[in-house]
């Protein structure tokens, strides 16, 4: 299996990123963001590309990619919902919100809708416990969620 190939423009960005860090290993995280953006997910070929351009082992890159919940090793939907399930959110009804999302989208947690519109994931604490329950859709943050509010929010994403 040959590694994926980064666009020349991305390679320039990667050079800039690597120059900011004392070690190449430290640049794994930002490079994985770029890889996910460019290749859609960080599958084996994308990991190999990242490992090669960084000059760090595939094992290291794989470890980082599977550790953080924002990286996907398989293709995912156009929009990703990260629903927090940590303590404060759970106490304030995150579980029933999850039921609502699963029913509405007709998928289970971790899955992608058949039309590829949404992927539903749990997130670790998003750092906004005072406004719980909370979720992220892509990079947009939503707080004080209810079933009705969720319906409204999802309508905004195609």
């Amino acid at each position: 299996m040959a590694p994926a190939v980064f666009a020349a423009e991305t390679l320039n960005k990667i050079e800039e990123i690597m120059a900011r860090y004392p070690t190449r290993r430290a640049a794994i995280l930002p490079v994985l963001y770029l890889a996910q953006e460019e290749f859609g997910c960080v599958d084996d070929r994308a990991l190999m590309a990242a490992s090669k351009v960084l000059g760090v082992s595939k094992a290291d890159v794989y470890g980082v990619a599977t550790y953080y919940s924002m990286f996907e090793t398989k293709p995912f939907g156009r929009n990703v919902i990260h629903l927090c399930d940590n303590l404060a959110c759970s106490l304030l009804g995150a579980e029933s919100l999850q039921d609502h999302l699963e029913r509405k989208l007709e998928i289970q947690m971790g899955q992608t809708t058949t039309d590829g519109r949404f992927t539903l994931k749990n997130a670790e604490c998003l750092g906004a416990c005072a406004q719980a329950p909370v979720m992220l859709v892509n990079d947009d943050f939503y707080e004080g969620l209810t079933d009705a509010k969720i319906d409204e929010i999802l309508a905004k994403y195609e």
Partner: protein
Amino acid sequence: MSGNDLINVTFNDKAYQVPAGLSVIQAADRLGICIPRFCYMEKLSPLGGCRMCLITVQGIPKLQTACTTPARDGMVVITESEEINEARKAMLELQLAQHPLDCFHCDKATRCDLQDLTYLFGDIQHRYDFPRKELETIYENPLIERNLARCVHCERCIRVCEEIQGADAISASRRGRPTEMREIPGGGECQHCGHCIDVCPVGANLDRLFSHRGRPFQMEAGGSICPYCGCGCTLSLNTREGRIMRVWPRGHEGVNHGSLCARGRFGWGFVNHPERLARPRIKKNGQLVEVDWDEALLFVATRLEKIIREHGAQSVGGLGSARATDEANYLFQRFMRCVVGNNNIDSSARFGYTAGLMGRLGVAGEVREATLDDVRRAARLLVIGADPVETNPILGLAMKAAIRRGATVVVADPRTTLTSRWASQHLRIRPGSEVPLILALGGRLLKEKELSAFSTDNLVTRIGLTTDAVADLAGMLEGEGAQQTVVLVGRGVTQAPYGASAVATLLRIVASRRASYLLTVDRNNERGSCEAGVLPDRLPGLAPLSERERFEKVWGQKVPEQPGLSAYEMLQAAREGKLRAFYIMGENPVEDFPDTGFVEQALSSVEFIIVQDLFMTPTAVMADVVLPSASFAEKAGQFTNLEGQVQSYTAVIPPVGEARPDARILVELSRKMGKGFPHKNILEVREEMNGLVPLQESKRQLSANGLSHTVPGPEVQWGPIEDSDFPYLLLTTASLYRNGAESNLAVGLLKGQEKAALRLHPADAESVSVSEGDSVIVTSKTGEIQVSVRVDDEIAPGTLQLAEGFADANPRTLLGHALDPVTRAPMARYVQVKMRKI
């Protein structure tokens, strides 16, 4: 504080002194104070992950991990208390709540740290009620099982793979409870050293060849020395009922410091292979048929005597073995010299160590030889024409250890190798220019008139390097730091034309700069066989034939005065009909010598061939007598490793069938021929040999002003001459997974890599329209092979790389046998070929 300073530490109310610079757990280990641990290991960086080594340090309110806490002067430490025990038991409780507890069918049961620590503490509570781990067991690696559910997350395997092996194949993936220590899906980075199996405290990383072949307490362990390469690693053979079940390193002992390579750990399968020769065979009516030893030896004696009588002693040739023990080689040369009566004695060391030895003999006085430990401590390594990571993997690890300590490594090699990938700088010289490169260094550093031409004329066209690059390289051997420079020299130099002269030049540089050197040695006992006297012009201890009198006195037998023929000179003589009989002890020229066609033709002209081996090799098939010999595990003896260290070992299991140790066969044959050797056992042979050749004797001969080497003129053609009919240049390499015929019969190595692969640049793959995995026919002037391709953009365009040693596609078939004027060995590093898709 220097390393010799002592500090005062109190452990459990007792005062001690320990060296400064240790962690608390290191100090405790040295004092014999037991602190439990899963993740800590002396040879690995501390992690502080398992929380089993918790201790109390006076003045610090919370428990501390002993592995990450430095021992300080005046420190007061408690290693056992109720609080500490409760904390450790809580850790075990968490481990046991997740562990599958499938000890009944775990290979590690009774040798498991989790079992032992649970047993030690005894009353562990079980308050957690969450489901046991349901992680899969991964069999993607052909040799190592990854039983993820049993893992205790100590990360020893990750650290050993990264910090010692340098393969970086294992990572901690996912997080929290489902964390997996595994290779990334698809793998491919693992070099099958198996170190992760040794360091695993539980049954998470397991040897698949050993799977369910016995409980640890049913194994008997016997120490031995690895029979593959010249490193001479210490092994522990685990046996059951006379058969090898698995191989381990023996603690931290030996030159290998507890590491092994794929060959050492997984290459033992040939020993109990069903095809091992169990009884002698002699040719009757064109067929090799089994006979008893008496008949076979009598047959050999009668035929040899007849040939000597009718055609003279000179009509017999002998190949000792770069694999056999020092003792067997010593007796072999004595047999050829005293019983047969000539000096026609050589071995496959001729293609490796012998050339280096001849170079060394050309330098008078002391030249510092590096040990593996010197390599580990080196500040600079200059690697010329060598790929230690594949030929001598433990030397490769020593190099990686040096790199981790900050050493600069420069590799001068036309090939892309596992070694060049580790280099701080890879100088991709033109194929065949190792020798002119060394001569150019000599021109710069030795200021000798005859070398000056090499430092000034057009280096770029001849070597492929700029004058500045050569100057930089020379800089590694200049100044104060030169003493910490180790030069590693491999077959890229010793198999090149005038390789021995180049070694001599290089060693004069090394000596003048007080640097040190080490020759990589492909076969386990190349050095020992030479030092035992398996050379046509040197007696045991490398004594010249002129010193034969003192040998004759001890042997009570005459030693011929005339130097004999070297390996290829014997083959040439055979082809000319001058060699009537050939005694081949443990060598396999048909497969292992360059230019297979020539070798076969030469051997088929010999009237009477004796082959002594473990298997019916392609050479044995051509023999008139085949004598089954005992493997390394089945006999006692000693090997001399690449550093010159002599290591003895004893038999661990009985020989297969009626196989006998080489030394015993030689003694019995000498008696049948009426010039019997007196030895009753191997110790008597060793005693005689060591009496004649004290360990320092070889060193004395090395430093005596012996050979003089001609420095070749600049007009010599170094690289290949372009030939449009054969547009590609095939460069031979080495493989971790092969080393001689035995390696092709070791199931573990076949699993590591089943078949040969031709590595080539994508552009060259495109030019013959092949992609990864397709097969090509490669043709040279002497032969043809079929092999599948592996596309690799780091290979130089126009060159093909093929490892020696794979039985299915052997580059030696393609090589020629033009002999070097100095060593009389074939120059066999590259060959011009053409290639087409099948």
